[in-house]
């Protein structure tokens, strides 16, 4: 187990370098450079000013030189300075956004699992009934409806017409003056719509997955045995079947690790939530290479770690895998 882990961790390094090399090249291939994105079509800008900025950002050097310089900094965990006019360290910009996205995604993830697993189990145990079909339709509507459209409709209903919920942002104006409870309540109200929309959209995947796992497990011999022993249906389903059907979900949780910091551009933009999705999108639009690379590296790293953690947890949870390895 230990050597296996070590080997996996060692392979992470070349993998990460490979990923950065490819993304670095691809980003620089996209038309438009940071300087141009800032200055194009502005007659006040002369060729000299443009050259001045290019030099300032180090864009006058050949691509491989830029890459090596960037990688050298990264080795010291320095993500460099943003190319945006604020010229702040990329890490500061990311740090400022991560808590928002993380909080939102953790709540949404908990809700998603808390809802999708029971839904999947229920649909499996009531297979082909009206309830199963109703659930299927419901979760697929969530999957198919465009986020921005649903968000706007909800905003209009709850924000403009009924006035129950704030429309966008994370806090009301005058938030500072509220009591501790008032602040908590204010924040909660702001989160209802974004989290509701995010959760609704993600129910389909997990609940369908859960349903088919469950159906598969129910067909197994040991379930028949359990029933033959005369155990109640409740015990059969929740103790014997569910535990086994939940195993693959561990893998899904591992995959969710990078998603926790990767915000969704669409709903962050619609709800004016200053999260990672917005930051990344703005970075891409402005061709802010260091920022984009920084976020991608963190994302790639978390994906690799997530996979590793999922594999390890899987082994820990499932004795068949643990023992089968020897």
């Amino acid at each position, binding site marked *: 187990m230990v050597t296996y882990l070590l080997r996996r961790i060692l392979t992470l390094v070349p993998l990460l370098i490979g990923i950065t090399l490819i993304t670095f090249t691809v980003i620089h291939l996209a038309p438009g450079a940071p300087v*141009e994105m800032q200055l194009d079509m502005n007659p006040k800008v002369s060729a000299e000013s443009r050259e001045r*900025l290019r030099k300032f950002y180090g864009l006058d050097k050949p691509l491989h030189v830029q890459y090596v310089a960037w990688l050298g900094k990264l080795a010291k965990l320095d993500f460099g300075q943003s190319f945006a006019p604020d010229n702040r360290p990329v890490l500061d910009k990311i740090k400022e956004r991560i808590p928002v996205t993380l909080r939102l995604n953790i709540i949404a993830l908990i809700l998603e699992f808390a809802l999708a697993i029971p839904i999947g189990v229920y649909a499996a145990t009531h297979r082909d009934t009206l309830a199963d079909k109703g659930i299927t339709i419901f979760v697929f509507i969530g999957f198919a409806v465009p986020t921005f459209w649903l968000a706007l409709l909800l905003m209009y209903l709850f924000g403009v017409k009924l006035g129950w919920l704030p429309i966008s942002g994370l806090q009301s104006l005058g938030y500072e003056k509220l009591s501790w409870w008032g602040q908590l309540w204010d924040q909660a109200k702001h989160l209802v719509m974004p989290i509701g929309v995010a959760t609704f959209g993600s129910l389909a995947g997990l609940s369908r997955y859960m349903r088919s796992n469950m159906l598969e497990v129910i067909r197994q011999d040991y379930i028949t045995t359990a029933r033959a022993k005369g155990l109640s249906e409740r015990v059969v389903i929740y103790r014997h079947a569910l535990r086994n059907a939940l195993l693959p979900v561990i893998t899904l949780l591992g995959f969710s690790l990078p998603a926790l910091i990767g915000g969704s551009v669409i709903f962050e933009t619609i709800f004016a939530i200053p999260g990672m999705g917005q930051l990344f999108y703005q970075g891409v639009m402005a061709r802010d290479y260091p920022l984009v690379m920084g976020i991608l590296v963190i994302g790639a790293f978390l994906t690799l770690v997530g996979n590793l953690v999922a594999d390890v947890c899987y082994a820990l949870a499932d004795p068949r895998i643990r023992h089968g390895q020897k």
Partner: protein
Amino acid sequence: MMNRLLFCLVLAVCCPLVSCSTSEPPAQQQLKREPGTPARGDAFILGSIGEPSNLIPLLSTDSASHDVSGYVFNGLVKYDRDLNLVGDLAESWVTSPDGLVITFSLRRGVKWHDGAEFTARDVLYTYRVTVDPATPTAYAEDFKQVKSVEAPDAYTVRVTYKQAFAPALASWGVAILPSHLLEGKDIMKSPLSRKPVGTGPYVLKEWVAGQKLVLEAFDDYFESAPFISRLIYRIIPDSSTMYMEMKAGGIDMMGLSPVQFARQTDTQRFKSRFNKFRYPAFSYTYLGYNLRNPLFADKRVRQALTSAISKDEIIQGVLLGMGQVAKGPYKPGTWAWNPTVKDYGYNPERAAQLLAEAGWTKKNSEGILVRDGRPFRFTILTNQGNEQRLKAAQIIQQRLKAVGIDVRIRVIEWASFITNFIDKRNFEAVLLGWTLGQDPDIFDVWHSSKTGAKELNFIGYRNKEVDRLIEEGRSTFDQEARKRCYWRIQEILAEDQPYTFLYVPDALPAVSARFRGIDPGPIGLMHNFIKWYVPKAEQVY
């Protein structure tokens, strides 16, 4: 600060809040509430699509940064309500008879937000840091013609130019920076980029990253302390969300789209809570022809294209009538705009006749004009994300089809549009827009020396007389003489039709009705913001 971003292309959704103007009094301005008595207090809440990047205006090019820093800093001069240059930090100025020396007398007793006094030293510093090759700024060009800047005493600044240059005076509208906080330090690392110290009517109090910026009234402001106590920019990246926020009372002002203005806000409820304003914006939309392409070399062909397009129909279809026909590169009502320019209007017969004169006489089986065996066919390129331009292109497509011209439309993402098509001159026709500055100098877009790589005369327009007139117009301070140049240029452009000038859209802002003292003028709404107030009884924040 608006005069900074002179010509930048009107991007996807332009926010025509600040720079708007007209000669006639703005249409819809009967305010529905009693004026009440001026009182201090309350807050004015604005939505901003983007987050400012750097509040030292010298270092940023985005409009969000310039909007905010416009309330924090002052220039030596500014444009007033009626678009005249007046003193701001300068009390007055004298231009030498040959136009080479401008001497500014500075206002005395002006305080920086930290209490230090404003003097000529600050002006000298601002000039030096701008032209310093180590400063990565986009604005060094403003001062390129300057030979020297001196300060004979603490309240006088003398600028000497290499040659007389009319836009020079307006270029001193740049934000003056505090030398006592910046001199001898690296401006790129200055904390002032997130915590600016200026001389303006508002002081930045708080900046919550990605969410909002809060500005507070500066009681020692040299003109007079503003009535509105706080100015809050909320960052709302989506314009639909912003519109909902306005309806729910979350923001106090935004620029509406024509549909929102004409239909969605035409309710009693909305009208009782908001005042809507309407006046021509400082921009125009055009169809530009690549003059290097033999297809468009003949000016009769270009005249024919213009005659075959119904501009009124485009204004109705795209702007719901909220705009006016453009005949040249100036905003109707400004002094440089020539009202007598000939416009043939929509006239398909004239178009057919002109095309026939240019040799396009036969039509093929599809009804497309053919000359030397080649059909009259071209592609209009426009940028992604601008619904109005796409619709205008489609209307043009229909009209040109009627006279036998086959038009295709291609929509391209902005960065790719510029690098792969505009910069490489790889286009036949483009549908784009320009934002106009207050100074009528159009050197960068129309002078034949500006056809090089990355330069803005990308259609390749060359006309010796226009070149001469542009040079003449920028080398004199005499408005009458300048006017003669620009009026003549418009006549030549109307004849040459290098662009088909399409329309000047209206700016359509709505402002919460609790704000009084709004005085719409040719420059727009915000020019007297420090005089706006909310009567005590109606204050919300």
